[in-house]
């Protein structure tokens, strides 16, 4: 169900499609290679270190530090209704990087490179179809988790 991921989804078919189901249930998952143990976020089915295609998901804390960011004012087709929005790249505590929107708990003027952030699973409440993503929030922000899998 990877078509759930992202406000606009360009890649409905992927070997890591369970990621979106986990995210809908409140779990942020990275991948771990079963052969060499290399981990990755974003998750990948085929290991970048040893090329093995045998992987498993593991749950991340979502804690990280802001690497860089931008406020996008001139937006592409499909994002007019959320413009302007702030995109950040985060160095995750467990390794890897994520690109995500800033959420409401962090005011724009408080955003600084190097600040600690919490990546939080989100569902687009205002859309009828299921659309999931994650946002960058204040450290300590909590959220509900379920397990429908």
């Amino acid at each position, binding site marked *: 169900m990877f078509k759930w*991921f*992202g*406000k*606009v*989804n*360009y*890649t409905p078919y*992927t070997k890591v499609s369970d990621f979106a189901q986990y995210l809908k249930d409140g779990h942020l998952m990275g991948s771990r290679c079963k052969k060499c143990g290399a981990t990755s976020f*974003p998750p990948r089915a085929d290991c*970048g270190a040893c090329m093995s295609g045998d992987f498993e998901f593991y749950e991340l804390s979502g804690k990280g530090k802001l*690497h*860089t*960011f*931008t*406020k*996008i*004012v*001139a*937006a*592409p*087709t*499909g*994002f*007019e209704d*959320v*413009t302007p*929005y702030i*995109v950040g*790249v985060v160095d995750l505590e467990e390794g*890897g*990087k*994520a*690109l*995500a*929107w800033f959420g409401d708990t962090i005011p724009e003027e408080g955003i600084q*490179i*190097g600040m600690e952030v919490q990546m939080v699973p989100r569902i687009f409440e205002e859309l009828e179809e299921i659309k999931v*993503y994650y946002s960058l929030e204040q450290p300590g922000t909590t959220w509900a988790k379920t397990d429908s899998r």
Partner: protein
Amino acid sequence: MSIKAGVHDVVAVIGCQKMTELGTPEILALMGRVGEVQWESGFGTTFPGYYAMFAKRHMHEYGTTREQLLEVAVKNHHYGAMNPYALFRKEITLEKALASEDVATPFQVYDCCANADGAACVILASEERARELSQKPVWLDGMGCGTASMSVLRRPNLVGLPSAEQAAAAAYEMAGVGPGDVKVADVHDCFTVAEIMAYEDLGFCKKGEGGPFVAERQTYIGGKVAVNVDGGLKAKGHPIGATGVSMTYEIAKQLRGEAGERQVPDADVGLTHNVGGIGQYCFVQILKRD
């Protein structure tokens, strides 16, 4: 390659693009997908947005300022005003650039190159045929290409383009020259920070010193190396498919001494640096005159 292999002895390389039939949101949507589409495009990333994040990080690590970034645009408009083929043939001031609308912070309108229509052509020939066909042949002495991961999340850093460093190293080695030998260069200034990172990736200055380098006018004619004295992508315009060929055209004109009021004195070694996507690949050429 086909000339070297003996298949052809003269080849026309033609680049063209017509971009103005689409509006900005459609172009942003199409070009935003040169980024990684699975984990990034769903957050509405754009071409300016990616380079804006490079700029923010460059400012954070090296103290590069907004004024230094926009000095690139001021320079390129200065020379674009002298180029009859440029889209924008007018000078701008730092004050005007700083007052322009936001695109993707810290970028404003004048940090960004323009979507444009254009075409360019270069005639390549074997050494023997080139001497018969031209009074002033220009020699392609070095070329290199480099690649980097599709996703910016898997790059070693976000303050330069590793593909450009690789391409430059290969081209310099093949031509037997170094950055200090280059008198004139056309680099891929799709955004202001892209030109500053190019100075650093090509070795014109040390890593992190690209901001002061342009602010001290080292990339104007008369400085250490003249960069984008045809106006660059910024003022000449960026018709994507034509841009790389137009760079070779410009450097050939410079090496032949035919660049008019934009002529770089004693230009004997030139360089082109053309980037694909957001640095997923890069090509560098070294050109020389007799």
